[in-house]
């Protein structure tokens, strides 16, 4: 027995088998074996947070002097815009009340009622060149669960794919492993938005399975459909950049520019299901 364990080829084969078993077991995002990620993520999180904080401060410091000039001009424009918006706000308040009354009358359920909004900071980006995954500073301790939708004030970012104790991994909608059931805001046609290998680098994604008779134009808005059970309905995904017909095929596809700028993303909101 001892001779077998001192045999180099046996040890090599054993390590390979163990690693392949690890691959098989950890393939599911909810697999318990993923807890070994805590070995790296728990002690790394404070350092990553500190680094992100320092790098933000440095870029803010250098950006300050450039911003002064631009801010002055922008300020004048903003003052003008504020007065316009104040008027719009009054109209909006009226519409909001009307909307609530109508929803109550029809007994509609507000889908966001079941979610709690958790603000998170991005503390690390994907270490390789293949995926669009990033790390946020909230994890199991904050009761974040896998498949929780991640958004910003502008629209959809992605979903939580793995949770460690104090950090979580988020797969963005431009990642090649991401698929989102979506709807064209104008025509209400159902489509599938997914990450694309070539478009990923430009911060774009694509919408597949657009039937030939669909009314879709560049500039049209795309939002989540609510089908699939992960993303709530009505979150803005992005705008159609161009529509391309698949040669010799029934349907066409569109290139989508997400409303979220993934290169400059710093803060996100996780929609946590209330217990």
């Amino acid at each position, binding site marked *: 027995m001892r001779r077998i364990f001192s045999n180099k080829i046996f040890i090599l084969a054993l390590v390979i088998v163990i690693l392949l078993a690890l691959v098989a077991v950890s393939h599911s995002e909810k697999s318990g074996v993923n807890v070994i990620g805590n070995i*790296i993520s728990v002690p790394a999180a404070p350092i990553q947070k500190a680094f992100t904080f320092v790098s933000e401060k440095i870029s803010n410091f250098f950006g300050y002097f450039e911003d002064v000039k631009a801010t002055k001009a922008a300020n004048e424009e903003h003052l003008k815009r504020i007065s316009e918006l104040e008027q719009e706000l009054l109209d909006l308040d009226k519409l909001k009340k009307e909307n609530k009354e109508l929803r109550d009358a029809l007994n509609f359920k507000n889908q966001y009622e079941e979610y709690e909004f958790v603000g998170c900071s991005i503390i690390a980006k994907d270490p390789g060149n293949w995926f669009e995954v990033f790390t946020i500073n909230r994890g199991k301790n904050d009761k974040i669960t896998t498949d929780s939708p991640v958004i910003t004030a502008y629209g959809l970012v992605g979903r939580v794919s793995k949770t460690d104790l104090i950090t979580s991994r988020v797969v963005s909608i431009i990642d090649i492993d991401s698929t989102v059931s979506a709807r064209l805001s104008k025509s209400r046609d159902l489509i599938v938005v997914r990450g694309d290998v070539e478009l990923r680098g430009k911060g774009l994604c694509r919408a597949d399975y657009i039937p030939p008779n669909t009314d879709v134009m560049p500039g049209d808005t795309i939002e989540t459909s609510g089908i699939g059970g992960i993303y709530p309905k009505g979150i803005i995904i992005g705008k159609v950049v161009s529509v391309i017909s698949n040669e010799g095929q029934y349907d066409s596809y569109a290139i989508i520019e997400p409303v979220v700028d993934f290169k400059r993303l710093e803060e996100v909101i996780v929609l946590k299901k209330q217990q």
Partner: protein
Amino acid sequence: MKYRVVAAVILIWITAFCQSTLLEYIEIFNVRPNILIIMMVIVALLRSTVESATMGLFFGLTMDILMGKTLGWYALLFFLVSIPISMINEKLYREKFLVLVTFTFSSTVVIEMLFFLITFMFRGYNYLPYLFGTVIIPEAIYNSIIILPLFKPVSVAYNLLDSVDRRRNRLST
């Protein structure tokens, strides 16, 4: 032995931290270097087969953990690539520019190519020429450049550890 393990853990830590934060700022054309591969090559060029394979496995596992996808593929690839390099390292002029560049370039191409083949197994290999030209080759070139300033400090650190080891052995005998 204890401080050797501590030194190895610190090396893996610093590398992992740099890979997930600092290197984001030196991306060129959306491609960032992979210093975990670079460290694996350096360790494989400097150390014994067992130490290199073990370190390779942990560097790979760290990469898997940082990526947050399936665990084990990079660990397996790093482990397998570090073995042949460490088996022939004594026959090489390890500090020569050409040796460092050749081993880093070929290791990056082999690891990333195999990773691509595994990842895209069920998606088809239509994107192979595109990704080979835009990700794998640029990353291999980038890694081959980055290894040059990193090799010397790591080799000095290992020499220091060896000399501490020798001094301890002498004292104990």
